[in-house]
């Protein structure tokens, strides 16, 4: 059986003894890459699946639906979803402003967007505590005036997630917006369309896929976040305990089954989202090729 990929290389699928030194080198380098990926990625991911289903599907399900675990999962999902909505709107707007307008300090703004990627997430948590902590000025004032607490509550979680994932949508939309042909917009304006109509009907459709890709990636990243959340939200069951913090608690109290079950759910969501984002990225690449 021969698998033909392109005109230059034909790879026999049946294992054949490579005869030339070049083929040996190819085989060698490929086995190194596969061994590395297997040890570093595949074995750890598989071991958690094996461990979580050790006592059968019913026990796995029982661990997930324990009230504490279930509420931690729900909190993680809804705070991440809220972050995703805000991030989608503000990220698209930021990309639009950066691409379309010139103003003083634009280069600085463009640089600031990447800062969250360079700052350790634990440090992000510390920053937010200093700003909104109950014993700090702003936090105390919000609490006294509006009875609104950011720390040890969902708003803090959403704020931390927004900080971490801010670059995702912006950097996903920006290059596509830059490539956009503006003659259609001019035509629409000539025909009397207003700014909002032009944005909705002409600018946004080609941006939809990159916006969605960026949003999904930020969601996938948010679900597993730990460093900033453990500082900002603490560890209050039913109130501010997210799935990652719950897993840590179960590991520490040696409830292996519970830790593994929730881990599997988190890994499965992450994997599904990544595969879907990858598929969308390929589709948007293809549609760009068609236009070109």
């Amino acid at each position, binding site marked *: 059986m021969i*698998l033909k990929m392109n005109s230059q290389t034909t*790879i026999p*699928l049946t294992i054949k003894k490579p005869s030339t030194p*070049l083929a040996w080198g*190819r085989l060698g380098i*490929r086995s*190194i*890459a*596969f061994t590395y*990926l297997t040890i*570093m*990625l595949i*074995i*750890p*991911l598989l*071991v*958690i699946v094996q461990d979580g289903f050790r006592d059968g599907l019913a026990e796995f399900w029982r661990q997930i639906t324990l009230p504490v675990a279930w509420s931690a999962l729900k909190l993680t999902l809804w705070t991440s979803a809220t972050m995703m909505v805000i991030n989608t709107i*503000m990220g698209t*707007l930021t990309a639009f*402003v950066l691409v379309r*307008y*010139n*103003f003083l300090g634009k280069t600085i*703004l463009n*640089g*600031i*967007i*990447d*800062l969250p*990627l*360079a*700052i*350790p997430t*634990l*440090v*992000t948590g*510390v*920053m937010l505590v*200093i*700003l909104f902590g109950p014993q700090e000025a702003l936090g105390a004032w919000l609490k006294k005036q509006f009875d609104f607490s950011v720390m040890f509550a969902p708003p803090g979680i959403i704020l931390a997630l927004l*900080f971490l994932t*801010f670059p995702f949508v912006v950097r996903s939309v920006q290059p596509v917006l830059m490539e956009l042909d503006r003659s259609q917009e001019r035509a629409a*304006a*000539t025909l009397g369309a207003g*700014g909002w109509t032009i944005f909705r009907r002409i600018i946004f459709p080609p941006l939809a896929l990159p916006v969605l890709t960026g949003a999904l990636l930020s969601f996938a990243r948010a*679900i*597993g976040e*730990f460093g900033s959340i*453990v*500082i900002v939200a603490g560890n209050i069951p039913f109130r501010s305990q997210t799935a*990652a*913090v719950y*897993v*840590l608690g179960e*590991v520490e109290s040696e409830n292996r089954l519970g830790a*593994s079950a929730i*881990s599997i759910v988190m890994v499965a969501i992450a994997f599904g989202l*990544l*595969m879907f984002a*990858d598929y969308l990225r390929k589709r948007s690449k293809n549609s760009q090729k068609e236009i070109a």
Partner: protein
Amino acid sequence: MKAISSSHTALMESESPFSTWVDRNKEKWTKWALITAVIVYVAFLILAPIAALTFGAFKKGFGAILTSLNKPEIFLAFWNTLWISLVVVTIHTIFGTIVAWVFVRHRFPGRNLINGLIDMPFAVSPVVAGYMLLLLFGRNGLFAPLIDALGIQVAFALPGMVLATLFVTMPFMIRELIPVLEAFDTRQEKAAATLGANGWQTFWKVTFPALRWGMIYGITLTFARALGEFGAVLVIGGGVQGKTETATLFIYRALEERQYIGAYSAALVLGLFSLILVLGSDWLRRKEH
């Protein structure tokens, strides 16, 4: 002066020939409203927390920062972080290059699946990553007999923390190199081969120089991420003071023990360090092009 003229030309470009005076002003208002919204959002979300950390650390003066940082336990914590990061960067530079190479140059079944898997550490929670290693190398772990036979300790020791950081930082090097390798014109390699260079010479003299910037950026991102790793090293390392405590684990403990100035100062140092790293390599790259 320059800013005014450039915004003016931008306005001229975007205006349609039939727009009236009213339309033009509406466009101007929209422009400044959107710019203000974005600047306010970024200032509130990103700049305010950074400023808060700086002020928080400097609250009791520069001297207080120095005295709070001048402790042997903090030096040890930063030292642990630094050498774990260095080991991780070295391993990823070598194996990340190999993986990216095989991914771009070879065709094999399951390539799409591997493409998705490479990004997994980016989305898998660090806590889960540390827990996976605990399942493998812990007391009743899958590899426990092997580890015991070899007489090394992995869980609750530095080797485990290196492994955890390796897992978490896996995608950076590979993701930086794949597009560079894809864009690289293989005719240069063929020319070198025709001129009698062997495989290693071709890689070292022709391919490697083209990969250099991708590598530098991959190294920086890996390094910055490794410096800040927290959840995974907490689970696998246990954060034993004076032994397996890294910079991030120290900050966490200091916060819990209410040593605020110490925690804020260490956070500031760690944040500054990775910031300088990332911004520095960005600056170098811009200077080159």
